């Protein structure tokens, strides 16, 4: 009984957490009309004219061409009045009227222009001269994810999204490499050497975690603009090579201290210098914590908005997060496009999460 309640709670929680994400995916795949459906619908659908295939259509035979074919004029259906050629075997006679069994035609897509509460809709068919007014139930609905929302979103800024993805990826990878190298080096220094002032320096390092970024934000901006580094990736990547992530240093140091010191000593006896001990002994043994630090740095850098917002000016240098901001300005109410673009930002992180 108690376990049942726990399962219900866990399941309800999972639903609540997932709904916004599923809603994003669902919105990104819907037509512009469908996203405003009331009540909301989850499955992206599109409408078609009622199916006219495999139904018998009344016709008058215009003339018989070289058997076994005939030219007939349609008396009903969406192609009313048109003259088409059919095989004679498709013609049947019933109640003194000739019918033709049409092969399944291309379904005619229908676009809902407006929808009224009682289920009536103004519908436009591509070839029809005017809009039709009919109950929605008269139309055929089918599962139709609008993949082109993604291609539309991808190309709707002056530069395509892979440009921004590549920028973000470059910055992120430089940060990951920089933090991994510098933080592990510093952590090694703190973990394995007993120099004077070590503990005080380490406390200083930890206390920088509590320093609000706003305090250094403005002087750093001034510094980068005086060195003409604004609108380059330098302000967003160079600091990473100086072990600016105190938390990463802390994690790595804790891990290094857990590794037996005898390893270092054995290597030292074999003539290994301190730098080689770090590179060849400690780092290979620290895979799990290096992955953790790498993933955390990746997430933080991929997510970063304030940095690119402050330091990047031209669109060609934008990361995905600031490009999304421009996107929002231009396509504010086109939610299916915005959700498609947001997914472009989300998906790489989720993929990384499942790999790591």
């Amino acid at each position: 009984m108690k376990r049942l309640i726990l399962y219900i709670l866990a399941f309800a929680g999972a639903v609540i957490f997932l709904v916004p994400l599923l809603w994003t995916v669902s919105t990104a795949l819907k037509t512009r009309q469908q996203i405003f459906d009331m009540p909301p619908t989850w499955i992206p659908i599109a409408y078609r004219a009622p199916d006219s295939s495999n139904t018998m259509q009344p016709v008058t035979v215009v003339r018989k061409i070289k058997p076994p074919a005939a030219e007939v004029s349609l008396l009903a259906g969406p192609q009313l009045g048109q003259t088409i050629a059919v095989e004679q075997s498709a013609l049947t006679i019933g109640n003194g009227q000739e019918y033709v069994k049409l092969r399944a035609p291309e379904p005619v897509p229908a676009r809902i222009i407006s929808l009224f509460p009682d289920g009536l809709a103004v519908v436009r068919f591509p070839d029809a001269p005017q809009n039709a007014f009919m109950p929605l139930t008269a139309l055929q609905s089918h599962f139709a994810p609008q993949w082109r929302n993604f291609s539309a979103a991808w190309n709707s800024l002056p530069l395509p999204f892979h440009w921004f993805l590549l920028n973000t990826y470059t910055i992120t990878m430089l940060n990951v490499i920089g933090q991994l190298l510098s933080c592990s080096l510093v952590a090694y220094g703190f973990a394995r050497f007993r120099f004077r002032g070590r503990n005080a320096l380490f406390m200083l390092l930890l206390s920088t975690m509590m320093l609000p970024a706003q305090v250094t934000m403005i002087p750093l901006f001034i510094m980068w603009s005086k060195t003409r580094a604004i609108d380059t990736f330098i302000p967003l990547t160079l600091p990473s090579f100086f072990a600016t992530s105190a938390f990463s240093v802390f994690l790595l140091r804790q891990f290094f201290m857990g590794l037996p010191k005898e390893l270092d000593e054995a290597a030292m006896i074999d003539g290994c210098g301190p730098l080689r001990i770090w590179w060849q002994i400690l780092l290979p043994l620290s895979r799990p914590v290096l992955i953790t630090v790498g993933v955390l740095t990746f997430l933080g850098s991929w997510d970063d908005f304030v940095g690119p917002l402050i330091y990047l000016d031209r669109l060609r240098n934008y990361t995905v997060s600031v490009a999304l901001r421009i996107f929002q300005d231009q396509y504010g109410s086109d939610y299916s496009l915005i959700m498609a673009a947001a997914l472009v930002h989300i998906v790489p992180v989720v993929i990384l999460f499942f790999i790591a």
Partner: protein
Amino acid sequence: MLDQTLETPVTGLTPRAAPLPVWRRRKGRRNAPGPRDRWGYLFIAPWIAGFLIFTAGPMIASIVISFTDYDMKTMRPVGVGNYADLIWRAGPAGGHGDEQFYKSIWNTFFYALFSVPLGLTGSLLLAVLLNQKLKGLSIFRTIYYLPSLVPAVASSLLWIWILQPDSGLLNQALGWLFRHPLAPLHLTPPAWLQNENWSKPSLILMSLWGIGGSRMIIFLAGLQGIGDQYYEAARIDGAGPFRTFRHVTLPLITPVIFFNLVLGIIGAFQAFTQAYIMTGGGPNNSSLLYALLLYQFAFDRLQMGKASAMAWILFLILLIFTLIQFNSSKKWVHYEGADEG
């Protein structure tokens, strides 16, 4: 070249020169720095350089700038002018400080006051749930963790759409609920981000979506660190699940709660992206968070001096909060081993 220098026995501990007795001696005096330990400075040098260039230097510069009027072109010393303008001098009536500044402080306190405790409680409850022996735990954990992976800009865009007053998912659900024949009250769903009274609750609500993230993982690690003997003792004493939680689990994870609380408050006071993307501070400054106003001062109005003064006021506020927490922690944070026996 560098390698060669490193290969030379700095320590004097090549096998030939220094046989075992040297090791033994060093083991006996672990705290005495040897000559090899000077290498430590070299290894932490990147951080020291980084700290000086990217933290300490800018901090000093920031203090100086906060006492000037600086628009990236000309710098003019104004003494405590920026602080005075913000705290007591400016304002429509010629006094009482900057109206937006106080509004942003109020907004940020309001935001932190709800998002931090609610978030911590939520994270803790999720962690407790995931600490039970349920099947499919890893699936649940993944699902709870997923929202915290969503980048801030993307999740802001997502929530703008969910909180959209007319066709947003939340209001459609609420509308259905409120119009239900069995609903006791006939309420109308709020306009969320577009309403002065609801914009802050919207940001808080959105922040709660991420409670399954790193904070929950830290709680979970704390819970898993509690030894079985405590639960065993509680069971023998006849305590039910709620009393066990109240008197065993809760006291034992107070260090983790403390850690999450300190970092949570610091994080909440720096919240920026959501407000910037979702509301821009509106309507009527109701969601103007402190970090957003600071950004506007610095990069929209180019009042670098005032923005730096705001940064230092933020620093002081956070310092006071952190000190209060550290002081009060003696009363409510239990460290295992410290109060045993």
